């Protein structure tokens, strides 16, 4: 991350913390924000967040490592979360999982080289009557099959492409 980006993020962190009176109840909203904008929460960011809330960096790390939607490792632009819990499992999640790996060329827990997709398992998504279910960022996809997986992924890939600026192409 560029120094200026870090400064900008730090300013945002401090602004948000101030909004919460620097009270720790504002910690998780700030973490969620940082996760959203930089796709992970770096040690530098954790340190800044700790400073903003007057707590210790290791406490921030304790919180980040507790929640599965927060991470210290950089995630892809799109996080594909396939439900692995019982009903989706019984509805054929294994075949979908297999096909997702094929389409993306990565295994679960990995991120594509272009930084576009991260593939993860997740626990019950609350779509048990329409499994297998899958979350891509905040979008829910239900009754996913090995055949439909490719289209879903392509859709995101294209959507991202449309937003790519000239500079990023080069």
């Amino acid at each position: 991350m560029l120094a200026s980006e870090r400064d900008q993020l730090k300013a945002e962190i401090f602004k948000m913390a101030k909004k919460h009176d620097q009270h720790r109840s504002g910690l998780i909203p700030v973490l969620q924000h940082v996760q959203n904008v930089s796709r992970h929460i770096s040690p530098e960011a954790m340190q800044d967040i700790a400073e903003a809330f007057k707590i210790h960096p290791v406490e921030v790390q304790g919180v980040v490592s507790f929640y599965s939607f927060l991470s210290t490792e950089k995630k892809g632009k799109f996080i594909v979360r396939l439900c692995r819990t019982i009903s989706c499992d019984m509805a054929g999640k294994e075949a979908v999982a297999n096909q997702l790996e094929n389409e993306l060329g990565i295994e679960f827990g990995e991120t594509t080289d272009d930084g576009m997709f991260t593939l993860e398992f997740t626990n019950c998504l609350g779509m048990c009557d329409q499994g297998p279910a899958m979350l891509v960022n905040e979008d829910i996809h239900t009754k996913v099959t090995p055949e439909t997986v490719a289209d879903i992924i392509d859709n995101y890939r294209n959507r991202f492409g449309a937003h790519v600026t000239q500079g990023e192409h080069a």
Partner: protein
Amino acid sequence: MSNNEKNTKFGSDRAPASSVASSVEVAKNEKDLGAMVAINIDGNDLKVPFGTTILDAAKKLNIKIPTLCHHEDLKVAGVCRVCVVEVEGQRTLQAACAYPITSPMSIKTYSQKVRKSRRHNLDLMLKHHVGECYSCFRNNNCELQTLAKEYGVDHYRFGHDTEPHHDIDRSSYSVVRDMNKCIQCRRCVRTCIDLQEVGVLEAVNRGPDLDIDTFASMPLGEVVCINCGQCINRCPTGALRANDPSDEIWAAIENPKKHVVIQTAPSPRAAIGECFGLPAGTSVTRELNTAMRRCGFDKVFDTNFTADLTIMEEATELLIRLKKALVDKEQVAFPQFTSCSPGWVKFLEHFYPEYTDCLSSCKSPQQMFGSIIKTWYAEKAGIDPKDIVTVALMPCSAKKFECNRPEMQDSGYKDVDYGLTSRELAQMIQETGLDLPNLPPSDFDDPIGEATGAGLIFGATGGVMEAALRTAVEIVTGIKTEKIFENLDIIPVRGFEGVKYMEIKVPAAGPVPPILSKALGGLKDFSFLKGATLKVAVAHGTANAKKVMEDIKAGGKFSECHFIEFMACPGGCLGGGGQPIPTSPEIRAARTQAIYAEEKTLYSRKSHENPAVDLIYKEFLKDGPCGHKSHKLLHTHYTKRGCKIV
């Protein structure tokens, strides 16, 4: 309301769990009780104050409930589930340490269900506890081992890892972390975050992956650890230990070319007996001298000598600061902070680096001793300092870091070669087979074995302040201190209250003694202080230190103090991270009593009356306290570390 207060009120000072049992109001005085609750434990009737925990209630009946994650000094966690008991009418067992009694109940502490659960939970903990008892420094002093025995663990019911899953972290000069032995009771976490407010260790991840980790998994030597070792004292297993130099010390002792000298701090002598089965609070000063000689140390000296020297230097430094401020009208940093506690020093360097000017430039007694040994003593004894090995017996793990600070080589050599804890010396003595409690007593070696009671009380919180005041008051007023403080006891700075504060009005002005006249620029007397009110404070444990520092930052009452004593460890040095395990408020109180009792037996209780101190200023540090030579050998500087590590 400041943010700080807000945080405390809302329990945001971390700790789920923790705050809970204490959040129920417990009446302190039985007479004032609004409500007593009638309970029955294992068939015994008892009335307890509303809100008493089951564990405390059982203690009153002398019923022992085993505990593991519970520690008297720490917030309640209720996570190990070893202290579970059966409460009649409840489906689940309750953690005795965390369950406040608020209504009449009947409790069984050792029913079949209870014993089975405890055994299972122990079996589970032993699953990943990698390490053999006989190769562990906590062998025979391990809470997990004791429980395993008490609950009849004769095989590993759910398996037992034999391959370590963590590398041992030896990066720190002071603390060694072996997470293979960790059972995730989180006592170290609660010690580091709640008790000491240093914040190095915390639980990370969840479920079976839960670990105790440092920030960004950095080695302990690279994070904001202050080396206080309080986590070691509270670890129930051998996961945390001090960096033990005894092999190297033995090697030096065996080496005929080396002259091995040991200095002993005041606190170990009041505690080391605990390692030999003596009750806490048994002083074994003179027996210990014999033991160390028999171990092979060539000379046994008393760190209290340099404690007395510290008082001379530090009191002089204070008087110089006061003169500069009041007479010369110069900008001087106030309050002056003591610098004897290396844990506190590193705490300040990390968390309050902007205040390093307030720290007294005096080295700690340990380091003063080192440079004196390798200069004055070497000269007097006619030994080449390169052949001298200085060992410091300390109650402290941070002293190991301190002696390795790069600036601590003013003698031209590493001033102190090894910091040795009370526990480690006890181990050395045990290796020799010596029966410490029953050894013939012997004295310290001259001349640096000469010390006063003032040096001795350095071991207890408030001791440095009391010693400094005994000397400063007498010098400034020209009146014998005992005329001002009855029996020379300065009670307001004693005791375990977290932060102590005291004001002393200067009733008279004495003449500047010749020894100080150079340091004070030819000042004749102390009339500039007559009628002034000297404000001093004492804080022990870095959580309390933090309170004082925040108050100073905010311009509160402590910012108006002239002199503040800070000790990193709760209770002061006697509660240090190198002292015998276990520790508790009672144990620390007993050690304190031993120190104050021994003090009464000494020929003098004022540092400036120490003849050896007199001698060293006559013979060696000829330009007096804070003079040129003492600045070179006895004073130091600090590093603004800050707390950013990435």
